[in-house]
């Protein structure tokens, strides 16, 4: 089977997007999107872990039997997350202070498991890594957009504290769009996450329908 990286990219970022099509990884999506910066940070950490862990699963795909694959997947994702956690704590401590909270949460994300099962366990290392990476990018984009909408409506800022995450060079990203204390508090509290995610799902479906594309089959299971 030849791999078409462009298809992988399109699938990961749009047609088969982890959050907005497959509805996976909703726990970190809901919990970590109270600002665009948090969404971006969680997304980037997940993308890094997914790229590394899909590669590992793919390398060992012929060495574990069907019966024990789930425990092996758990082992691989837990190991990758722990290693990323320790390395970031030791050598990227400033970033770790911002992201450190999110990293252990990646273990409970269903998206890597879905990709191990559907892709990495059946494909060679490079395409698997690309799949993990693009799925991670799609996840990052979805989380950043949800975070941005919630942050603008809830606190009136956009990418507040982005320089803490990305370094002082990104100070220009920090914007205040609405005057202080005008935001709707509910949007940065848990209900806002459900509202915004739901509305974005609707928006994506509408764009897909308007462009004449059928709703992908994989999304059918969450359709009514």
């Amino acid at each position, binding site marked *: 089977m030849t791999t078409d990286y462009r298809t992988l990219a399109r699938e990961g970022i749009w047609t088969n997007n982890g959050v907005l099509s497959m509805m996976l990884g909703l726990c970190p999506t809901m919990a970590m999107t*109270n600002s665009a910066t948090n969404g971006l940070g969680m997304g980037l950490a997940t993308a890094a872990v997914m790229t590394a862990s899909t590669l590992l699963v793919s390398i*060992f795909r012929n*060495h*574990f*039997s069907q*019966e*024990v694959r789930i*425990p*092996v997947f758990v*082992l*691989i994702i837990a*190991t990758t997350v*722990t*290693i990323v956690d*320790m*390395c970031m*704590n*030791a*050598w990227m*401590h400033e970033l770790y*202070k911002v992201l450190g909270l999110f990293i252990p949460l990646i273990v409970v994300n269903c998206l890597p498991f879905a990709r191990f099962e559907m892709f990495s366990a059946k494909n060679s290392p490079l395409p698997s890594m690309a799949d993990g990476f693009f799925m991670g990018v799609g996840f990052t984009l979805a989380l950043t957009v949800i975070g941005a909408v919630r942050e603008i409506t*809830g*606190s009136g800022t956009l990418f507040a504290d982005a320089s803490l995450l990305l370094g002082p060079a990104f100070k220009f990203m920090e914007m205040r769009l609405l005057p202080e204390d005008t*935001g709707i*508090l509910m949007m*940065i*509290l848990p209900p806002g996450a459900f509202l915004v995610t739901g509305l974005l799902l609707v928006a994506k479906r509408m764009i897909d329908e308007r462009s004449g594309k059928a709703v992908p089959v994989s999304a059918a299971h969450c359709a009514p």
Partner: protein
Amino acid sequence: MSSQRTLIHGMILGAFCLGFGMLLVMTNGFTVDEIALRAIEDRQNSLAQVIPDSIHDNNLATDTLILKSDQGNEVVAYLATKEGKVTGVAFETSSPGYSGAIKVMLGVDLDGKILGARVLAHKETPGLGDKIEVKKGDWILRFTGLSIGNPPLDKWKVKKDGGQFDQFAGATITPRAVVKAIREGLQFFDANKTKIMEFKADKTQTKNTEADKAPK
């Protein structure tokens, strides 16, 4: 037959556990010292915010004293010393807020006056209760320089309870908890003042004996 298959699966899983376990041990070995260093640096940074540099010449994070609180919990006190004399102390105090404990690092000088207070960790509602963080507002800075007696003990409350500290619009429980944590911290300092002074005695003694030996 089937038990043999089970055995094989077990061996495969065992091999993976062993391999990845070793990988983790190696990573831990490489990073453990760095992580410990970073933790000390963090501790020093948070201590530097509540104890001004001018009053100490020691390493705050390493000169510690374990004290017992009224509830029987151990409290680590970080001592500021200058030329061997204790000049101040910093310790953590906490009180339950709207959701979960609010931890405050409190720096106090020997007269019981607050050198600085900073919220270390809290889970208050974003946008309402988080104004207690120094980066979201200067509310916490107004405690600097106060002590029990200034204002008097019965004024160590938020205004709603008849005290002198402002609450925020929409949040009373959070500032009430912070005021309580700081008030209790000061009372804890009073109760343990002699022990904190004793630390100085120990320290100067060891220094003196070293100094005595040196010229001979």
